[in-house]
């Protein structure tokens, strides 16, 4: 089929892959008509030029961990693997800067940097498999964003193939730069709709000298609210601040073999600094939160500590094996409204007949909601209605609800992104200018 497709279009695709491999490149269950894995920049440029000439829908492919995100593609003719863009061509530990191919896995990079006690300070999910290309394309983040920011704050330079196949570079290996527009920001989180990444320059940080975490259990949400306000008004500098509802806490405790009473909420606070500073902050937190906390568990550099943060980072523990029933929503709120929203979500979801895990990057105002839906029309319709209601409630604060994963039937009746603010018009115009034929991930993003 691939050969006939190519001969029909009278175009040859370098480094195209055999038909037998097409099933590895599915997006939302759809298979491309052709897949290619260019070995050089010249090949990549040539393939994109062909794609543009032929008006193909193109999906860039790293390790595929993010392909679930977004709407189904409007057109999907070509899967373009970045497999050969997997090098670490430049690394200057003295400058705290590294250049990395877009297909390089985050884990591979972190292992490389570990020898110099450096790291790229992000901890997004799928950490074993996800590639830097996918992480930049989705602005993927994890708990440590509270203290360290997101990949956007570390991206210094970017190599990118434009929709006409030309290769361009923006930014560079220096840590401060205002030369021209900050295109790195525009491309971060653009879901492969503005170009295909070849490589990046990242700023690095030294690994923290010492770490400790506190799992703080609360009987009620009001105490959580008070504790968070107290923390916001203090000099403490946690590197992460996570929230779990009782279902989330139960999942974490079971995996970690902690025998706790689960019918409580948790705030998990991580401190990463010099040992003196970390120990002082732990003591200070215990003292400040004493009136509010039901019970506290302290974990320091240990396997349990690593496991805890793996559980808080990954989606896997909260999803069922039946992929079709899983729902994961990302709800963006004002951070101090966390308790209000947890209350509302729990109340609204009480009738949905599924346990609902609420996990939040509490300090950043990002709630992740996981549930397993019974695949029935009324249940899906109920959730769809709720999503629309929540979106309406968040409108005044420019918040949002994104369906990061969900059954096809849900995505059919409610838009994945639900982005309806006025600036959508500017975003559409940017897409039209930079990808006028709409060949890059057509239809998958907000524009």
């Amino acid at each position, binding site marked *: 089929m691939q050969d006939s497709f190519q001969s029909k279009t009278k175009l040859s695709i370098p480094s195209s892959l055999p038909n037998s491999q097409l099933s590895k490149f599915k997006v939302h269950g759809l298979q491309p008509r052709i897949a290619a894995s260019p070995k050089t920049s010249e090949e990549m440029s040539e393939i994109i030029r062909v794609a543009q000439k032929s008006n193909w829908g193109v999906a860039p492919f790293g390790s595929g961990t993010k392909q679930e995100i977004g709407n189904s593609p409007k057109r999907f003719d070509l899967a373009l693997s970045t497999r050969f863009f997997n090098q670490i061509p430049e690394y200057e530990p003295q400058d705290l800067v590294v250049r990395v191919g877009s297909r390089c896995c985050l884990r591979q990079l972190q292992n490389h940097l570990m020898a110099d006690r450096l790291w790229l300070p992000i901890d997004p999910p799928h950490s074993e498999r996800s590639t830097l290309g996918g992480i930049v394309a989705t602005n993927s983040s994890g708990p440590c964003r509270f203290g360290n920011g997101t990949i956007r704050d570390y991206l210094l330079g970017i190599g990118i193939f434009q929709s006409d196949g030309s290769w361009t570079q923006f930014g560079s290996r220096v840590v401060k730069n205002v030369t021209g527009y900050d295109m790195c920001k525009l491309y971060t989180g653009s879901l492969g709709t503005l170009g295909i990444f070849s490589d990046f320059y990242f700023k690095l940080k030294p690994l923290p000298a010492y770490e400790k975490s506190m799992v703080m259990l609360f009987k009620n949400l009001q105490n959580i609210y008070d504790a968070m306000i107290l923390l916001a008004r203090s000099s403490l500098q946690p590197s992460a601040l996570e929230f779990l509802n009782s279902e989330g806490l139960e999942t974490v405790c079971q995996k970690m073999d902690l025998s706790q009473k689960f019918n409580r909420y948790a705030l998990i606070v991580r401190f990463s600094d010099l040992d003196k500073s970390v120990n002082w902050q732990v003591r200070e937190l215990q003292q400040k939160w004493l009136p509010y906390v039901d019970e506290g568990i302290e974990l320091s550099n240990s396997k349990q500590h690593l496991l805890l943060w793996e559980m808080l980072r990954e989606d896997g523990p909260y999803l069922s094996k039946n992929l079709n029933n899983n729902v994961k929503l990302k709800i963006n709120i004002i951070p101090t409204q966390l308790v209000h929203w947890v209350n509302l979500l729990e109340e609204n979801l009480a009738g949905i007949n599924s346990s609902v895990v609420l996990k939040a990057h509490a300090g950043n105002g990002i709630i992740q909601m996981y549930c397993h839906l019974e695949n029935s029309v009324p249940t899906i319709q109920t959730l769809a209605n709720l999503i629309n209601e929540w979106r309406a409630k968040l409108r005044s604060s420019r918040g949002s609800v994104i369906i990061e994963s969900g059954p096809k039937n849900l995505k059919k009746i409610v838009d994945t992104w639900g982005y309806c603010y006025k600036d959508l018009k500017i975003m559409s115009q940017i897409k039209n200018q*930079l990808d006028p034929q709409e060949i890059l991930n057509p239809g998958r993003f907000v524009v």
Partner: protein
Amino acid sequence: MKVDNSNYYSSLNKIHKSLVTLLGPEWVLHTPEELLVYECDGLTLHTHPPDFVVFPNSTSDVIKIVTLAQKYKIPFLARGAGTSLSGGTIAAAGGIILEFSRMNKIIAVDQDNRLANVQPGVVNLHVTQATENINLHYAPDPSSQVASTIGGNVAENAGGPHTLKYGVTTNHVVALQVVLPNGEDYQIGTTAGDQVGYDLVGTFVGSEGTLGIATEVTVRLIYSPQAVKTLLVIYDSVVDATKTVSGIISRGIIPAALEMIDKNTIQAIEAGVYATGIPLDAEAVLLIEVDGLEAGIEQQLDEILSVVKDYQAREVRIAKTSSERKKLWAARKNAFGAYGRISPNYYTMDGVIPRSKLPEILNRIDGLGKQYGLRMANVFHAGDGNLHPIILYDINQIDAKKKVLGLAGDILRCCVEAGGTLSGEHGIGLEKKDFMPLFFSEEAIEVMRKLKTVFNPNNLANPKKIFPMRRGCGEMSIDPENNRSKTTAYEKDPEFVQF
């Protein structure tokens, strides 16, 4: 070539009347005497007068002015305190300057979400002053922070000494209200979690007024450090000072600031009111600051002192009190002003190089200065590799300006060849636009032009900035300095008249 100016002047009259109707006569300047002060900004090598300077008081005023500018196809640009060092607020093609001194309110401070919503005319330092009672502050602190405004900082993506640890403006702006060049206003960005869709705030910050005008800015505040230690380290060798910089960073310590001052600058400072008693024969000085919690600050300091010792510092002074600390910083932050003591004129440059190449590049820059027969001084953000070579000159000497610009160009080439860029914090503006092809491919410049077209299709918002003049397609280079007469205003420049 004779040019008929009658249409032009009749348009100006109509525009003037409309502006007065919109804002009242006291908020519209138009006589040559009134406009003189707006001919240039911190970049004094280039000048060009605007046709009008107006003082909006609200987003709604800005919308009306921009809509009017679109109607008459007259260029416009925003100006805060006019401290831009790249000519960002020079009306290079004439037109209307929107001066933001009336829009200087701090609208709201949200202590628990650590945010401040401010108007663009608010002075940078005033945000910190308004929030210090709740132990918060606004981290980006350009040397101009006592004067420069948040709107200007957003346009230029301003940095400052403390950005080594805390990041530049773009890392601290979460949402904006903007008026686009077509007169439409938009909210972009969000204070609620992550932005969905393209990062328009990140794209807008640092766009030097070419994508529109910010009329409200929501910035992130950070907790003020419990403890601060400031050290002044004196060296007999520039190389030892620069090696100390890399030594500190490679030990895994990120100081809050790491600034370097060279011999000529020391002499200028010591001749002025901010003298701190640095020996005049010292070759270089590092100003190092660490901050954080009380617990752990001594540990950081000990690490730094051990690196300093490794590189043969002549003397280390540690500020014991807050007033001592302020004095050390005053010397650094007022260094530019001090050059007036040792030279009739000076030109402040801005380039970035990889930190590890500091010794090599400083040496090359020194050589270039000698080649051109010009004295140089250096005071810069060593921790970021952000150089500020200062060219000292006397404008009355023959070919002074030509030589200065020649040397400046060679320094920029040197930075780019070393893997660096054209600007770390001053922006491209008028100053460096023709150097853009040194750093960007033609294709990359074209991509940025396309982005600009989305926001600014008629090129009326701050024209003649950032982009090099096109050579072709009927577009041509016009040097603003040779076009001081009214005949060269917007109607005559094919670069931005596309209607």
